């Protein structure tokens, strides 16, 4: 074992995905002003001012190449991802990225039906089921934003108060309005394209009040596909029956983290600065005469990917980086502008890759203090020998930002004992509430597919440019799940592996030449896919645990997953299918949907079979809440049990809502930086005395 003592680190961040990158970028944009004795934004520092940098260390489990951010090297690595994607047969979300034995990732190709009580151990996750958890993630520089689709709706106000509105699940410790300014910051950082005027949601009477008066997205909406236009036109003004209710269909252009034309009316500056007031630090957009949005292109070349070019491979990889990924934020953490405006690598943000963090230790005298962080650093992609490293964190803030599987895994692997009332009590870090690892959630994606009566030319443009928002909220939520329905532009590729399966089918029928071409044209141009992302409620039994029986090659526990779905969600899926049937009928879509008992995630409800997929929305394993008994962290993602530990990411979310979680986790993470600045302020000021 080796104690690495280099320069003292003020903040140690585990993970370089969007959460870790946002913490690093936002913090490192601030410095300690020695004279003013407080944290100030870099941009406000005069040339003669004495300042002290916040020293930040980031730890990434993925390969070193994945966090090289200079133009030459980042291009080379990314190009390798792209070429790997092109050559892989199964173009699943993880396909472009290195599949590391030293830091394995959950992969959709590893999902199998489970025959309880025997767990399925095919992949990285040990799946006890009874339902397999159906989503993947990737442990690589930039995290899972490397293969996200990029859809960024905000949560709705009622999503934050399911208990008080519908008497289900639990209320968040914060309201939508609390999070609103941070949503704006997240939309700025991710670079969201969209049109506020065209957003329409149930229960939201005034969209401009919901978004904020005069608010615009940084970029104009990504053009909606021809298919979207045909479907919206076919259902214009239509309503569907849901139970006894009649619900109007809203087709809204999906806000997304994908570059389009900068919005001339966008009036926020690109500078997110903290101001210290009586309640502590508060982040907001700095005033600027030059408030406009600067499009972020590729990490290697800011002039590539300034607009979406319609490559249509957003998942798993955008070849030009027009789609946001966290490497863009990470680069802004590591490179700062000098006085001439040029980007220079800063010494105060370091990234150490190939470093798998697996455990934290607390002080014997003060269990509230995290004193050590344990990691194993492997030598190379090919070799599994590693160096055991312990970082002293007594004077540092530790931020776990390693995703909703890894965060609870590390916490559960960090035991300590305390004496309470003279009795020795065994604990794990941050887990007085016993909520660490619990409430694992995902959107259950039910797909329905068919042939449109005329060509709608699928397979063009980003994955999804329109969604049906009508079922995102309503009184039915006391009874069954709400959902959002994106229209998918990629034909039947997800449920049926089109177009390859269509070719195989027609050739199997003996077709060739002109007949085959015509059959393919007729089918592929008319393929429509509807997609229902069903909200899953938090359930204490849906959880991640660990055991010494299931270790990876580095001797680190693998996440064990227990997962199932409840009546509430099953009924939601039944209702969604009924809605789908009504829409198919109105549009004259020939239904090709088929759910089989051999599907990985399938169940029978009221004598009807339903199958679903994962949405990649891994949420809820270290939820925020009202106090130390009901949750792992407070609303600033700070562990209730420890003075120097934050746990950030989608795991922080109390409930799932119907929005894709990345934007919300980004907003929560940005907000958590305020609390970190308070902690750092106290620390820097005590050191300076």
């Amino acid at each position: 074992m080796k104690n690495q003592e280099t320069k003292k680190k003020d903040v140690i961040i585990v993970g370089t995905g969007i959460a870790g990158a946002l913490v690093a970028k936002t913090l490192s944009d601030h410095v300690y002003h020695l004279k003013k004795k407080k944290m100030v934004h870099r941009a406000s520092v005069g040339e003669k001012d004495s300042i002290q940098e916040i020293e930040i260390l980031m730890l990434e489990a993925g390969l070193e190449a994945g966090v090289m951010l200079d133009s030459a090297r980042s291009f080379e690595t990314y190009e390798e991802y792209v070429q790997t994607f092109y050559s892989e047969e199964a173009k699943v979300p993880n396909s472009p990225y290195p599949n590391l034995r030293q830091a394995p990732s959950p992969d959709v190709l590893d999902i199998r039906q489970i025959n309880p009580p025997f767990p399925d151990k095919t992949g990285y996750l040990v799946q006890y089921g009874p339902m397999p958890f159906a989503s993947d993630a990737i442990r690589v520089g930039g995290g899972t934003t490397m293969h996200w689709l990029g859809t960024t709706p905000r949560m709705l106000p009622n999503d934050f108060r399911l208990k008080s509105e519908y008497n289900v699940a639990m209320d968040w410790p914060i309201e939508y309005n609390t999070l609103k300014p941070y949503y704006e910051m997240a939309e700025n950082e991710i670079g969201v394209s969209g049109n506020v005027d065209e957003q329409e949601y149930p229960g939201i009477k005034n969209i401009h009040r919901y978004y904020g008066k005069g608010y615009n997205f940084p970029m104009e909406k990504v053009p909606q596909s021809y298919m979207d236009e045909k479907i919206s036109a076919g259902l214009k003004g239509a309503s569907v029956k849901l139970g006894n209710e009649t619900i109007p269909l809203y087709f809204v252009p999906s806000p997304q983290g994908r570059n389009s034309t900068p919005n001339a009316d966008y009036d926020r500056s690109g500078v997110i600065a903290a101001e210290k007031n009586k309640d502590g630090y508060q982040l907001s957009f700095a005033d600027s005469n030059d408030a406009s949005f600067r499009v972020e292109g590729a990490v290697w070349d800011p002039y590539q990917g300034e607009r979406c070019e319609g490559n249509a491979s957003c998942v798993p990889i955008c070849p030009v980086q027009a789609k946001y990924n966290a490497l863009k934020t990470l680069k802004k953490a590591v490179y700062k502008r000098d006085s001439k405006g040029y980007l220079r690598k800063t010494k105060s943000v370091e990234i150490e890759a190939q470093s798998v963090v697996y455990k934290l230790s607390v002080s014997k005298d003060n269990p509230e203090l995290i004193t050590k962080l344990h990691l194993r650093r492997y030598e190379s992609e090919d070799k599994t020998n590693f160096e055991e490293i312990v970082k002293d964190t007594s004077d540092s803030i530790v931020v776990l930002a390693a995703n909703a599987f890894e965060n609870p895994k590390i916490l559960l692997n960090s035991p300590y004992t305390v004496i309470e009332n003279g009795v020795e009590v065994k604990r794990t870090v941050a887990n007085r509430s016993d909520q660490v690892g619990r409430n694992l959630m995902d959107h259950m994606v039910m797909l329905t597919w068919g042939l449109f009566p005329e060509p709608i030319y699928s397979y063009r443009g980003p994955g999804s440019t329109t969604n049906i928002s009508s079922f995102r909220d309503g009184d039915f939520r006391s009874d069954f799940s709400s959902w959002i329905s994106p229209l998918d532009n990629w034909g039947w590729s997800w449920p049926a592996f089109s177009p390859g399966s269509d070719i195989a089918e027609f050739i199997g029928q003996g077709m060739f030449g002109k007949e085959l071409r015509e059959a393919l044209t007729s089918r592929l141009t008319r393929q429509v896919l509807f997609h229902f992302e069903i909200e899953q409620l938090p359930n204490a039994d849906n959880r991640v645990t660990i055991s010494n029986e299931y270790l990876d090659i580095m001797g680190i526990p693998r996440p064990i997953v227990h997962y199932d779905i409840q009546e509430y969600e099953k009924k939601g899926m039944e209702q969604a299918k009924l809605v789908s049937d009504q829409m198919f009928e109105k549009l004259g879509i020939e239904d090709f949907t088929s759910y089989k008992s051999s599907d990985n995630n399938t169940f029978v409800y009221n004598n009807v079979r339903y199958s679903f997929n994962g949405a990649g929305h891994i949420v809820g394993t270290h939820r925020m809440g009202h106090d130390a008994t009901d949750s792992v962290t407070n609303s600033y993602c700070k562990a209730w049990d420890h003075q120097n530990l934050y746990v950030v990411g989608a795991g922080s979310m109390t409930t799932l809502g119907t929005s894709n979680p990345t934007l919300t986790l980004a907003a929560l993470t940005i907000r958590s930086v305020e609390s970190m600045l308070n902690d750092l302020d106290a620390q820097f000021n005590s050191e300076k005395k």
Partner: protein
Amino acid sequence: MRQKLIHKKEKATKRLLKSSGAAEMASNEMDVSLADLLFNPHLGKEAWMNGIKAHSKELISTLLSENYEQEFDAYLKSNFSDLNKSAETKNALKNSSILQVDERAFLQEFLQLAVLIEHSTIPPYLTAMYSVKEGANGMAVNIIRSVVIEEMLHMIMVCNVLNAINIVPSVNKPQNYPTYPMKLPLNVDFYVGLEKFSSNSIATFIAIESPSSQTVKAPEFPEPEMESTALLKRKTVQESDGLWTSNNLNEFLTKNVSTIGEFYDVLFFFLVIFQCLEYYRENGKLPTSFEEINTGGLFTGDPKLQLGSEHYYGSGGKLYKVEDLRGVMQVFEEIKGQGEGVDDSIFDVDRSQFEEGAELAHYFRFKEIFHERFYVEGNYEAFTDENGRMPVITPPTGIEMKVDWDAVYPMKANVKMADYASNPLLYAQGKAFNQTYKKLLDAIQAAVEGKQEVLAESVMYMYALKEQAIELMRQPLTAQENAGPTFEYPTN
């Protein structure tokens, strides 16, 4: 225009017009005053050329200073103040033949030549890029791609200058098509052609973007049978009696101008001169300050026709709108900077977006491919003289760039539609490619004529071109060589 030229700034010599009896002027370049150059009816051709050379350099050097407007004022004053005072010279001015020159036609010819130069680089760069087999040489392809996008930007910016002086730009007519192999209409000894990606073609690209002395040997092409630049043959300008004719201009360019940067210096000089003459026509005297010639005069174009940054992206360069002389300066600064670097450094104009300011000018980016190495992280001490300068030919010594010169389709160089005459499939594919390329040019033409939104279509055509070019390059033409795109004007 903040580019530091190697030539020292030479003090302007103040002189009135030489007596009308003087015969052929001395050939020493600085012996020709600006006044003589413009108004002396007895100036010989050689002296005229030397004068243009000297004065265009001097004008450019005045623009290097931070307060270039004052320098510019001083330049105009020193050359024109006395002329305005003397009654004799005033009279001489009135009868000067330069006032008979059709300025607009002259500038049209000159600026269209600029359009052609910018255009002529695009097909060779695209061809080299398309010839790389899918998945290979990612970095090299990316470098070429980024340069192509900037060359298109330059072409459009020159169109902005044309629009600013109220001339409809032309980019999609047969005479706008470069014919390969071609020689740039400058004093250069290499030919530009449609060649596959190779160290030879990259060497040519380096030569095209060359900032000064030509040191990388370019491949030799056989002398073309036809006139390479159609524009040079066209005579749109009414020949006047004086020296300010397009023939003389072309002769001047092919004798005295050896880089694209210098070409723009001379072009700028002509614009300034004609703008001064415009001022003279309106006010009966010559201008003595920058502000007097910044607006008005030639600048009668419709500002609505200008394309701006909102219409063009994907390039390090900014698309400047041109409404006055200052706008012209920005455009030329951008074009020169991206090609050869600014401040005499290897860096491009806008380097703020790249780490350590490392966005390189085209010349140096191509050298990176050629030498299979990046400049970044190299050590150049050994190449640097006591003034901190290193020769532009210094090879990069930074981190390695992987280049696989063999992962390339063996395309026949400068292939023509005529080569496909006996192969109907190739003929159809070659034609389809040329039609798509024409559509791309049509989109640019429509945009510079005011339908600016059409420019967005060019992205689509760029993708289509790539697909069509690769289809051609995959097919054998002879036992050794494959087909490729011809970039010819599509005919029926």
